[in-house]
């Protein structure tokens, strides 16, 4: 227990420096910093307005009305916000550092290499938008009349959804060690993100089953929201926990194998 506490404390202290160095870098390019901030806002508003527009012409999509779906979309924007802030940049850096050999230095640091590789780049411009994202979540949460317990559970479920999604992505990204070029893999990740941004009931039966059981990205958003609307759907949350553990376990082997395959670029 003492060891676990020490380990958590160690990683938090290192992460604090990841954040502060990323902020130092981020704010030194002011135009880029502002543009990224604005582009994120543009993405959030355009996503919500698209759904709003669809509901100008129809009453329901599946079992959900406009507010139900907008709350779902806001929840997914919350996960996307976490993703963009905490890990997104690292995925793009990974293939570059594999090809150039810059990864070498990350691998000799005395910390878990998954942590050093995927949490190294924090995006400070995105974190500012947290207020905007949570304003949407709270607004549409009130519209769908979330119960008090749901409000308490909401941040934890969002974290669980984020965790499940990034663990799946870590497994996919590990393939860059074999493929070297990561553009295709990164576009695959982005497509999976797109699929997860819509509720599970819009997909046909086979696709839904595949994306819930084999590659459970539909659990990321649909699992928590279905549960928040109806506590009887708690098995979905249990499935998310189980899927997270399974993919974490797979990652352990995939990552070890990826590191063994890493040849580093010639100098």
């Amino acid at each position, binding site marked *: 227990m003492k060891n676990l506490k020490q380990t958590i404390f160690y990683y938090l202290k290192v992460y604090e420096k990841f954040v502060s160095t990323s902020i130092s870098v981020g704010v*030194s390019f002011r135009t880029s910093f502002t543009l990224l901030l604005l582009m994120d806002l543009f993405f959030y508003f355009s996503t919500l307005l698209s759904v709003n527009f669809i509901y100008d012409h129809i009453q329901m999509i599946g079992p959900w009305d406009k507010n139900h779906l907008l709350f779902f979309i806001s929840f997914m924007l919350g996960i996307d916000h976490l993703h963009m802030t905490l890990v997104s940049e690292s995925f793009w850096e990974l293939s570059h550092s594999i090809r150039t050999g810059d990864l070498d*230095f990350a691998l000799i640091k005395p910390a878990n290499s998954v942590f050093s590789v995927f949490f190294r780049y924090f995006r400070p411009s995105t974190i500012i938008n947290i207020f905007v994202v949570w304003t949407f979540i709270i607004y549409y949460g009130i519209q769908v009349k979330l119960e008090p317990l749901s409000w308490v559970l909401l941040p934890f479920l969002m974290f669980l959804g984020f965790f499940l999604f990034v663990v799946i992505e870590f497994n996919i990204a590990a393939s860059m060690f074999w493929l070297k070029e990561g553009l295709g893999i990164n576009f695959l990740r982005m497509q999976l993100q797109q699929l997860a941004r819509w509720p599970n009931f819009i997909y046909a039966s086979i696709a839904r089953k595949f994306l819930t059981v084999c590659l459970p990205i539909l659990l990321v958003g649909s699992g928590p929201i279905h549960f928040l609307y109806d506590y009887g759907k708690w098995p979905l949350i249990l499935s998310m926990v189980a899927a997270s553990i399974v993919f974490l376990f797979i990652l352990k082997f995939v990552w070890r194998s990826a590191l063994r395959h890493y040849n580093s670029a010639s100098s």
Partner: protein
Amino acid sequence: MKKTVIYSQKLEKKFTSYKKEPGLLGSLKSLFVRNYITKKAVKDFNLDIKQGEIIGLLGPNGAGKTTLMKMFTGIVVPSEGTLKILGYTPSERDRLFRKKIALVMGQKSQLWWDIPAMDSFLLLQRFYEIEESQFQKRIKTMSELLDVDDLLHIHVRKLSLGERMKMELMASLIHSPEIIFLDEPTIGLDLISQENIRNFIKEYHQKNKCTIIVTSHYMADVQALCERLVLIFDGEKTFDGPLSKFETILGKEKNVTFNFSSPQDPTLDLWSSFEAQWDSHKIQVDLRIPEDKLRSVALNIIKDFPVTEFNTEKMPIERVMKTLMKNPQIVKQLNGNNGPHELNGRN
């Protein structure tokens, strides 16, 4: 008896790549059919390095030096053989092992380009769990030694190559590693910066008694820092012994330079006997003269030609290397003639 800190037995590393035919057609072809080739970058490599030694690892480009360094640090996993560093198997990537080693690569940077070096050092302080007082002390000592105390808060991208390399060294040594791997630490630097870096490494080694492995293209690095030299050609160890022994590989010949007051005729028979190398004005010549003939030949030249200056030196290590690179069989022949224990005593 000092303990062994680096031990390798029959170490081997294979890399697979494919040959691509040039041009668009070659590119399209490679999309469907690839001609894979496997190359052994390191072959049957045995090494035994004791605590506190400072070793030079020499060899031409592509000889396998960097691959060895990467295997030693656990970045690359060996294909075959045994490798133990400080009792650890590097490829297992034990956290304690990684805390005890450091790697400096002259052609790659571990510092963040867009922030001052000090910010990167602070991050490393967290990684290596260095106490604040120790951290401050080490920063002060090293920055004074390297004369960079006023550069610590400048963005790394604004530093010169030499200044950046000094910062790289600081970053790698901040946790007081037991073994330091320096992969071409002076590459691309001007002569003064090279010397500064060498002096720092030398002083650091004397103070800290750590083990250092240096690879370099500059013989001056090896001559200034190392007593023991390991030569690697095409992935194989071809020489392992004292630097002094390496310098005598090509025989007991002296390099003598004569300067003349007027241009001389380079076609004379005399010059051809001693592998003469003339300057463009024909007023300076470098000769290789066997030690036993040095006195008589030098006297004759001074007597018969308008010599203004002359000096002798041992066979420069650069020339030894050049000759060996052209004729790697020389070392093999010598190993064969003298027996592996004389030249290859640590094999």
